[in-house]
């Protein structure tokens, strides 16, 4: 016997909405999740990602749209009728039940024969490597172990879909890295689909097959980690994905998607990600891509620099007062003058106005 997700083709969200107290907590979320896919819902706090997850779970009612599992409409079903697995942010382990009882709870609710329950629980315990602790209470084990119990409890019922609500946010940095690998390993083994809510873009990039960026209840971009990392569709997504330098610029000349623009006193090249009708544009650069070189177009002086082992991270200021984050392979000192530049394809240009 092995734990493996129930068979299904896809989960479809069609125009999922939730209005609460006159506010749109979620606006028209449409998404198709294939079987076995790992989706990360990424966004800052208050962006609606937890609301979206609770709507999927059935813990919050929708105010519009529908949810489909293949040909079955499920958005009117109660949480207990949907058969999804869920890992809560605080784990929500039943404090009065042993780990074994916690993990077997969903199976007992399905009224499966005892031998089947025992066998599956044993297997789930082995999967999360907690066989030895099986008879302890949740209060007697560490945070990382509680986390693993929560995952085992969610997957042992072989759900088509597992929902995870910032499951790693209560763990320390080292454990977080370990558990990341663990979650992906279990996901691959079970073959379920996973929807994973997080505000940490590293987590989303390393875990997900596709990332959905949410902001103010709206889907801003859906794409693979690489797409999001390399080509964020909007300036706000770029900012969230680690493009720390978001600069106002004036377009000078176009050449297809390539364009030249003025930033402060310098003229730099970049490539447009969206249509830039006006002269005012926004240039987004990662600190990693902005490096000192003799031919760099931007003159600036170093404000501060931080040694990071292999290289330096620094903040520089141009004579016009623009502040730029940059990376350098060689040591830089505060007060030092330098010229900064980035390859044109790594300078992303968005329509201006807002920022």
């Amino acid at each position, binding site marked *: 016997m092995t734990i493996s997700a129930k068979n299904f083709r896809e989960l479809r969200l069609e125009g999922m909405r939730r209005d609460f107290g006159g506010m749109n907590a979620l606006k028209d979320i449409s998404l198709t999740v294939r079987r076995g896919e790992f989706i990360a819902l990424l966004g800052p706090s208050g962006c609606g990602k937890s609301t979206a997850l609770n709507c999927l*779970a*059935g*813990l919050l009612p929708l105010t519009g749209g529908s949810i489909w599992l293949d040909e079955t409409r499920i958005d009117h079903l*109660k*949480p*207990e*009728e*949907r*058969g*999804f*697995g*869920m890992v*809560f*942010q*605080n*784990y*929500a*382990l*039943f*404090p*009065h039940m042993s780990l074994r009882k916690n993990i077997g*709870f*969903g199976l007992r*609710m*399905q009224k499966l024969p005892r031998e089947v329950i025992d066998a599956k629980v044993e297997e789930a315990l082995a999967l999360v490597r907690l066989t030895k602790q099986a008879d302890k*209470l*949740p*209060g007697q084990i560490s*945070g990382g172990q*509680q986390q693993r119990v*929560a995952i085992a*409890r*969610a997957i042992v*019922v072989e759900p088509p879909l597992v*929902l995870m609500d910032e499951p790693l946010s*209560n763990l320390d940095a080292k454990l977080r890295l370990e558990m990341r690998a663990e979650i992906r390993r279990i996901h691959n083994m079970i073959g379920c689909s996973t929807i994973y809510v997080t505000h940490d873009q590293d987590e989303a990039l390393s875990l997900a097959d596709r990332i959905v960026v949410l902001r103010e209840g709206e889907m801003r971009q859906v794409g693979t980690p690489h797409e999001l990392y390399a080509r964020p569709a909007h300036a706000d997504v770029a900012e969230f994905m680690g493009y720390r330098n978001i600069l106002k610029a004036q377009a000078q000349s176009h050449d297809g998607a390539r364009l030249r623009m003025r930033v402060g006193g310098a003229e730099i090249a970049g490539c447009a990600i969206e249509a830039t009708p006006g002269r005012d544009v926004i240039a987004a650069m990662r600190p990693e891509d902005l490096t000192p070189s003799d031919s760099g177009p931007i003159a600036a002086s170093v404000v501060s620099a931080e040694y990071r082992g292999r290289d330096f991270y620094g903040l520089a200021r141009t004579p016009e007062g623009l502040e730029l984050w940059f990376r350098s392979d060689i040591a830089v000192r505060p007060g030092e003058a330098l010229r900064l530049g980035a390859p044109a394809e790594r300078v992303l240009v968005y329509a201006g106005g807002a920022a």
Partner: protein
Amino acid sequence: MQGMALTPAAPERARLSQRLARRGFDVTTLLLLPALLFVMALFVYPAIYGLWLSLHPMNGGGALANYINFFSDAYKYDTIFTTLKLAIPVTLVNLLISVPIALRVRHMRYQRILTTILIIPVTLGTVLTAQGMLNYLGPLGWFNRVLMLLGIIHEPVRLVHDFTGVFLSQIVGGFPFCFMLVLSYVTGIDPSLESAAAMLGAGPFARFRHIILPLLGAGLAITFCLAFVQAFAVFPSAVLLGAPSGPTRVIAIAAFHAAYEEYDYSMGSAVAIIMGAVQIIVVMLVMKASSLLYRGPVAGGKG
């Protein structure tokens, strides 16, 4: 010379205060003393004095004469059963209606208004409630009138100066107390535990049976004990609303009668001690039974 004489003593004293400080006794701890002495003088001492007094009967006849007297006179020892017959059903009813209501009310927005309304009978106290119920439930009161108007009854039912009156007054006063205790236990249960159970396929009844009830068990036992001891010591409503010489002759009346009407403080203390002993026995039985239940944190892990 004086300095010389004091020098050896000083380090000695410092060491003593250090030793005390290491065990947690310092000037701040001493702030406790006045209150502790006060409670010792007015609670612990009277309890011991009461016990001593009860063993020195006013009319002589051996240390246990008061107790022998109490347990050989059916009119006296029956008060224990009369009181139990009142207190146990009242406490159970209050507890049983408190649980579903607390579960319903905990997510409610106007919770505070409801708790404020419910705290009123607790504040007004049993004496005022008794006077109100004499008017309200009396044969010519509004309650009987409404029932007659609705055609449910044809002549007034006897609700006061009887067991029913005391029973109802104990619900009016006891239900809010139970309800608020249960509500505070219920709101202590992490709501995500119920969500988690629902996600695992547990319907409303299964969630109550497997999650809420086990987590609430110890709290319900404590609520039962606290409410029971209050109900067991019922006095004003048993006198004013009940039939104090008959079906609601509770043990507090027997104690009061001995001490204040027969001026036998020795016997009065003996009855008070029997009253306390019955309360302790019931509480110990309930706590013993509830020790089999889960007791521990009711939150779902860290965070």
